[in-house]
């Protein structure tokens, strides 16, 4: 089927909001090239389970398209239109299953050396849309805090190397009550400035308490979902499913398959948890990977104004292998390795925060838990310097405006 043949009934199986978006924009969808429409429908079909910021992005794409004259639309879509697609791609039921189309398209683009062209087309299109309809600025300056090193008593690893030139390194932080202070301050910030899905706490272990006002994702609390994902993977392998088939099956996992129920915000959160664990690589086994990936996905998708990411010791590679064999173990932990993972994870978290609107006003704090080292990257502090003044967590949080 070609995009020009799209009709309202084709979207009958879409969730309610998604169906409405598709039908409302049917005329536009009919005029877009085959190399683009299924990808846009991939966003539309998930509309009901998307965060507000993601919905705004989908809405912006349609609003932009609607506002253009037909020749300008064709011009914007020209790079997608020039992609050479194989005939079997058009045979995929890309309205009902845009994910399958997307996977096949990806394989086709790699095979035919069109990946770079596609990437250019996508980046140019999104930049054009953002330039015409700028994403809204954050409700308040963003703050991200990374707490790392839990369980490490002593380390010679040179922390924060990738970010030192960008901020102030504090070497005399009073760690007393540090985590409690951070949680209390983040919670207070969330309660004072309620923003839907705007304040998050990600923990690589099991937090003692769930701080009010923060959307909390804790590695251990997600064990049932992780187990279900790993169990499904193992079952697919036993059945002889290939890599692509396994990936497709995992991408189709729904919260309902795992007994997770809820509507509205709860539904959105449940979908997010499932995609986090079914689409991420390594998150099923390593808590450090989970925290880094979850922080990345929260920033990319929910675009929060507050993020607290706390890393915890992860299992060793040997324990991961034991997990593959079907036995979970938590006793064989590598806190020092987790510190190294987390240090890189902190850098990636900063990079991801800087990709969002309001980057020039956003602040970032990394603290070596229970130790005296921290780094602040913020408009309010100098870059590439070390501060030897005694400071506590409350004062550090003041510096980042949290």
């Amino acid at each position, binding site marked *: 089927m070609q995009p020009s043949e799209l009709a309202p009934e084709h979207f009958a199986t879409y969730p309610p909001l998604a169906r409405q978006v598709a039908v409302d924009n049917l005329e536009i969808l009919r005029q877009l090239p085959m190399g683009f429409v299924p990808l846009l429908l991939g966003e539309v079909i998930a509309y009901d389970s998307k965060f507000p910021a993601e919905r705004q992005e989908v809405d912006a794409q349609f609003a932009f398209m609607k506002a253009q004259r037909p020749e300008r639309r064709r011009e914007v879509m020209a790079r997608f239109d020039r992609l050479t697609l194989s005939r079997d791609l058009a045979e995929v039921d890309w309205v009902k299953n845009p994910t399958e189309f997307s996977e096949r398209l990806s394989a086709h683009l790699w095979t035919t050396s069109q990946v770079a062209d596609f990437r250019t087309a996508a980046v140019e299109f999104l930049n054009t849309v953002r330039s015409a309809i700028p994403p809204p600025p954050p409700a308040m300056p963003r703050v991200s805090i990374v707490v790392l090193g839990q369980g490490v008593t002593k380390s010679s690893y040179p922390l924060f190397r990738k970010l030192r030139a960008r901020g102030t390194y504090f070497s005399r932080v009073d760690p007393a009550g540090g985590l409690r202070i951070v949680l209390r301050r983040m919670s207070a910030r969330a309660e004072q400035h309620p923003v839907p899905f705007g304040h998050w706490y990600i923990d690589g272990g099991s937090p003692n308490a769930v701080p009010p006002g923060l959307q909390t994702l804790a590695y251990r609390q997600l064990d049932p979902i992780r187990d279900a994902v790993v169990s499904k993977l193992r079952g697919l392998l036993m059945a002889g499913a290939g890599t692509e088939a396994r990936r497709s099956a995992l991408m189709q996992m729904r919260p309902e398959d795992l007994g997770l129920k809820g509507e509205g915000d709860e539904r959105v959160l449940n979908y997010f948890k499932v995609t986090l664990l079914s689409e991420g690589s390594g998150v099923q086994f390593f808590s450090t990977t989970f925290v880094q990936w979850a922080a990345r996905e929260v920033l990319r998708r929910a675009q929060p104004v507050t993020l607290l990411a706390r890393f915890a010791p992860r299992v060793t590679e040997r324990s991961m292998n034991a997990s*593959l064999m079907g036995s979970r173990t938590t006793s064989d932990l590598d806190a020092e390795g987790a510190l190294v993972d987390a*240090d890189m994870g902190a850098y990636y978290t900063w990079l991801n925060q800087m990709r969002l609107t309001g980057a020039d006003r956003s602040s970032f704090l990394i603290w070596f838990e229970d130790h005296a080292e921290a780094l602040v990257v913020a408009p309010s502090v100098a870059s590439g310097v070390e501060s030897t003044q005694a400071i506590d967590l409350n004062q550090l949080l003041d510096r980042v405006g949290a």
Partner: protein
Amino acid sequence: MEDLGKVAAAVSRSRREFLREATGACLGTALLGSRLRAQPGTRPRKAVVVTFGGGARDDETFMPEGRQNIPNLVGELLPRGTFFTRVVNRGILGHYVANASLATGAYETLNNFIASPPEHPTVFEYFRKELKRPASDAWVIAPSIGFERIGESQHAAYGPGLGANVVLPKRLLASAVPAGAQADYQALLHDNYESPLYRPEAGSTDLELERLTGVLKVSVSDFLANARNLESPDELSVFLARRVMQQFAPSLLWITLHDIDIAHAGTFSLYVDAIRRTDRLCAEIWKLIQSSPEYAGRTSLFVLPDFGRDSDETPGGNGFQHHRTGDARSRTTWMLAMGPDIRENVVIDRPIDSMDLVPTLGSYFGFSPQFAQGKPVGELF
């Protein structure tokens, strides 16, 4: 591809500056004469190709902050060889398809996750057919089951009976491990980091055990005892490469290391550990060559990653974890060549293509890889 060219050039510059500082290497030019033509060896040449496993980025290797991870490459090997700072892979960035492409000298388009033979003739087939070499003279040590067909193409003019022997260490181990003891060897049986739950099947146990005991002359008990002391699958590969070298002394040996691909698990520390291990294993392989009467003085070693990994700056990726974006960082790598015919302590800055390896081996051995897409690297010999 303009972006690719610019970034590749910048990456190349950073490598060259780092190398000059680290080793005092000089910049080579194509005007220097060919040692290969001027000084033909008296004994038949041999070559060992090592892929610096599973995609490693400059950031963790040849950039200043990565230097600590490759002390053997920088301190021991680079001063003895010619280093190419800019090797560009323009193909599909999956490990099997990329390694198959390296081995054919032509960008293959096969499914990365299915063990299918390459479309174009492999270097092993050119080598054996044109030089009339026996099967025992070309071997591949491959990291995962998906690589089992890499030794022989489906090309009509070559193909069956002309390829290399392919050793799959994990399959051998899976066959040798007694029932119920697999957990003890699980760290070595982990087959494919892009699909963490994939484990090698033993295949035909009798056949595999025959390869182990009958062909490689390793008793099952010795094999298991050695395996138990090994840290990683790549160490198992080098252990078996050593056996192949001792047993058959093949003139063309291809070792694909793969531990670095643990990066897909997202754990930076394990990724860096694997780079350090690979660096050490490369030095061990070189020492093995130098200490073996069959290899010393007539063997060239080629070390190159199959490709890189995604840049930290590319929003569509997740940095070191994957190689999915096809950005310039993930396509731009390096190659080190060492041996009696190869100039020492030289850095070559002009861009070469990953597909140039097979034609270069053709020049070295004296065969014509007519279906390869690359060109011989003139500055090397």
